[in-house]
């Protein structure tokens, strides 16, 4: 059986559909606003994308799932595709500000410092 990988937000959105299907799309917008804090346009954008990928379907303003919950899987949040940005500032700036990744040795050292200080 083929596995469908979904991003966190997509998975949460699909979960709403699995729980309530079949659901009227206006209802779905309301539900997304309450549960996910999404604007109407965001809901429709994500819905369109998931329909295009054959995960959900929207027929006559009624949304239902094509892929079953058991066949879908969330992306591990750490195996992120490509980090486009970091925080609210341009990337070169965060690099400049010294917010770089720390090395393993540094991390170990810091861990030791924290332990010592809070003994």
């Amino acid at each position: 059986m083929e596995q469908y990988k979904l991003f966190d937000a997509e998975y949460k959105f699909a979960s709403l559909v699995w729980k309530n299907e079949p659901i009227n799309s206006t209802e779905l917008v309301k539900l997304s606003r309450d549960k996910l804090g999404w604007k109407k346009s965001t809901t429709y954008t994500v819905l369109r994308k998931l329909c295009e990928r054959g995960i959900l379907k929207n027929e006559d303003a009624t949304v239902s799932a094509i892929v079953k919950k058991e066949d879908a899987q969330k992306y591990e949040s750490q195996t992120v595709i490509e980090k486009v940005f970091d925080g609210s500032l341009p990337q070169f700036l965060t690099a400049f500000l010294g917010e770089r990744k720390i090395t393993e040795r540094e991390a170990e050292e810091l861990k030791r410092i924290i332990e010592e200080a809070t003994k």
Partner: protein
Amino acid sequence: MTDLFTAVLNMSITASYVALAAIAARMLLIKAPKIFSYVLWLPVFIRLVCPFSFNSAFSFLNFLQHNPRLSSGAMEYVPYNIGFMQDPAVDVGIGSISNAVNSSLPPAAPMASANPMQVAMGFASNVWIVGVSLLLIYSIVSYLKVMDNVKTATLVRDNIFEADRITTPFVCGFIRPKIIIPAGMSENELSYILAHEQTHIKRLDYLVKPFAFLALIFHWFNPLMWLSFALMSKDMEMSCDESVLKKLGNDIKGSYSNSLLSLSVKRSGLLMGSPLAFGESNIKSRIKNILAYKKPKFWVVAAAIVITAVLIVSFTANPKNEDVSAPITYPEYDAEVLIANKTPYVGNNSKVVALIDALPLPAGIVRGTVELHTANQPYEITINLVMTDASDVTVQGVISGDAFYRNSILLFSLIDNVDIINCKISDNTGKYDDASYTFTYTREMTERLIGEDVRSYAGSAGTLKNLIDRLNGMSFDAERTSKDEQKEIKLPDFKANVSDPIEQLVYDAAVKQYSRPNDGFTVVAPTIFGSYEEGNKLKVFVTVFNMRYRLYGKTLSEVSGGIVPAAITFTKNADGSYTLDEYLEAMDGSFFPKSIKEYCVMPVSKKEIRGLSDKILDDYGDHKNRSELLMENLVEHLKSNDQKGIILKRVTDELVPLT
């Protein structure tokens, strides 16, 4: 655009001093809560965005050796007219730095159509605006990308959203800020991170950072501001950490540090080894700061408040303007009013009188009637002046006529066709036996004194101010006597004798172009960039250094001149000789490059000659060879006219022995 750039440059210099002081003050406040270091960046920001400030004797900038000019509340190190100054000079307030900078600034080429400094400032401001634009576009694109990515962030509670394609929590949005956290954080980690981010929101840090960054974009050329921004960000984070600890108690130190650490370990390795990263990583110093945090003692806080308040005021204030009253012999001229009444004709009664009235008179002297002699040349103005009070007169140098000479030079500059100005002073006080003195000044005298046609200064209020500044520093008596005693020896214009027929044509055309037999003799030095024949036309592209001289006894003085690129077109006659058709000069100032590009075309077909205008413009940066050629031609000319032992007195008063 150059003015805007100059304004930014001036703000940047002040801000640099304040930033250096803030960095020093941070060391002083190292034991104090970080909030104090954080607010110290406020004056730096104010200096970056606001050119004006109040004056105070408390200003830290009083340490500057001589106060930079304070024009209407703004510090001015780099003058706005730097592009037009004879010797461009900045005054950053510390002598040795100013000298080092000034020695690297190119002096004005008085004869050239565009000063090197003017060109340099124009170029620099273009580079600046390109940098600003690129950074703005980059930032806006980055911001929009962020917005697009967090659009699908899902609600956790209140204003907290989680998103899975980020690795670090942050605050987003301007009006109703949201906290965006990476999806899948443990509840334990979350509580500290949320406390941290909520503190940022409460203190409006999410607004501070973008505005500080915007200021940084406009000052991108100043490395100190980048450093300041980095340090400010660090202080912001650390003081935010401290207020979390203050709120949640010292016991959470360990777990708070651990959440920070685990977040930063999770980061992707993309940024690793970035050449821009410096010092110990932020996270290390933050964790150390958290672990070392103790609730500050009362007296530490009290002392820090006092110190910080004093520093902020002194960083923000401009130095007290110790108004050195202008010397009495240098009265204030209003260049704007003078320029407004500039006139080509001495016959324009109302403008001429307005000009005379705009010029200051020494105390105790009032203006009587003004006579305009316009029937035939030379055109004269006679200003009748009445002395009503003799007490100050001798002190102020009226008797020597300096004030009148200064005024007359300005009139020669602003009234195109006046040749002679008489200042007739009659005594009405009885003290000098009703004597009357007349000071007569001629345009010729003025030009000898100034070394060039003073009308060239009447272009704008800015250039006129340069003339006023020059007059201010001038001694008149010495100049007058040394030159007037010598009788002028009239010499013909330069006659070249070269083997290349085209070069000979150019010499003859250029001498003809610049010759003014009544006003000295002309010598030229052309650089030829190429000659193009098409049909019966010949077009030669040149840059000509022309100069008119007058010889008084053994002293040669420069009357006026210029370095002007030109296109000279000739027609070839049936017998093989050439007749001059047109001598087309490049235009002045900002039209300069464009006008050259326009005439760099073939004589008949008007087809563009590629690369030619660039060649001419590149060459225009350096006039050394032309100056040497001019000197050679001048010496040759003097020799062929049997003039020996001649000394050239330059505009700059430099004496050059020639033959």
